[in-house]
């Protein structure tokens, strides 16, 4: 189990590094609900907005 853990941690950190270095990054970490119109932490629109 220890070997699997070592592999998972190293692969995980490497993936984060690759993703971070190859993706754009805005000035501040945001949650999807920061966006106007979002009605939930995942960014879902409000039912009242959907009806329009």
């Amino acid at each position: 189990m220890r070997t699997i853990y070592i592999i998972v941690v190293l692969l995980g950190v490497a993936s984060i590094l690759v993703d971070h270095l190859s993706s754009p990054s805005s000035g501040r970490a945001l949650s999807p609900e920061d966006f106007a119109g979002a009605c939930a932490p995942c960014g879902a629109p409000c039912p009242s907005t959907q009806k329009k």
Partner: protein
Amino acid sequence: MSTASLAASNQDAAVRMDRLFLGLALGSTAILIALVLLDHQPLSAMLILGGFGLGIAFLKAEFSYTASWRRFLTRGEAGGLLGGLIVIAICALAVVPVAALMPKFGGAIAPIGPSLVVGAFVFGIGMQLANGCGSGTLYTVGGGSGRMLITLLFFVIGSVFGSLLLPALLSLGGADPVLASDYLGPWGGLAATLVSIAMAAALIIAVARSRDANFVPSRNYMIGGVIIGLLCVVVFAAGGHPWSVTFGYTVWGAKAATALGFDLSHSAFWQWPGPKRALVESVLSDTSSLTDFGMLFGAMAAAAASKPFAMAAWPPAKSLLAAGIGGLLMGCGARLGFGCNIGAFVGGVASGSLHGWIWFLAALPGCLIGIRLRPLFGLSRE
């Protein structure tokens, strides 16, 4: 204590410490913090550190929502549930007024409808099969449980499926979020939120008393609840919204699926502005991923500092199957229910949002079913 016995005790602690995994945990955390600081994002570093603290606190207090809820449903014991309410009450003291008064802060809100109820119910089944919830999965994986590694993997897969299903369930209808501070103002909303928590506590104690069960939280749950509540406030201050766990899993899964050649960009969920941005941008731009990473490595550091890490044997295949099914259900349920026991229940109630309580009431019957299913996988109902 004599010098000789002190030296022996220090030597004993050094022997128990797992330097390899302690180094991996601390090194990985340092790398992540360096990356966000290089991007001039000190608040992101604070989120990682907040998560790191949460990982240590959960592991050391053995703070388990899943076991607490199971003990309440099977034996009427309410100490763990009340410990969870301590976390929410402390968090609410900051979240309700600040979210209402300060423009850059917001509470955890969600529409009320079939998606919320179905998602929470499915999550409840999954958390009992997996034997861990949103936060529980993170700190037990960090703590060295191979079984929960399987849960995390399927949690991530399930949450991607959930993201594809959510727009269809939302189209069934529902009501806009109901936030106490919208009706009563920041301080009235806070008072209403605290009263709702007190009423829930009174009801839970009444149930425990009627079953002659203990309702006093253990010392671990009292101290752990206070520390976790304070760390929730730290995460809220750094992230601008209450602590959430599972959106990060969805982003990890979607990024992995994209890397494997699946095109998610056409699905409705991934066209909403927030998820669309999260899929394109660095994973370190997502608040929930930052605290998730911190929590994993915090728990790993705490576990490795006190004993050899991940030395347990793999559990039986049936238990691993339950871990996988539970993870899948939790992932899907979390997306449909707008979060897990942290993002939807703790964050929702602490924000004064009605959906938090509805999530809790829908998750409990799901837990009951999950508890009944546990023996099929060789797991105890207790």
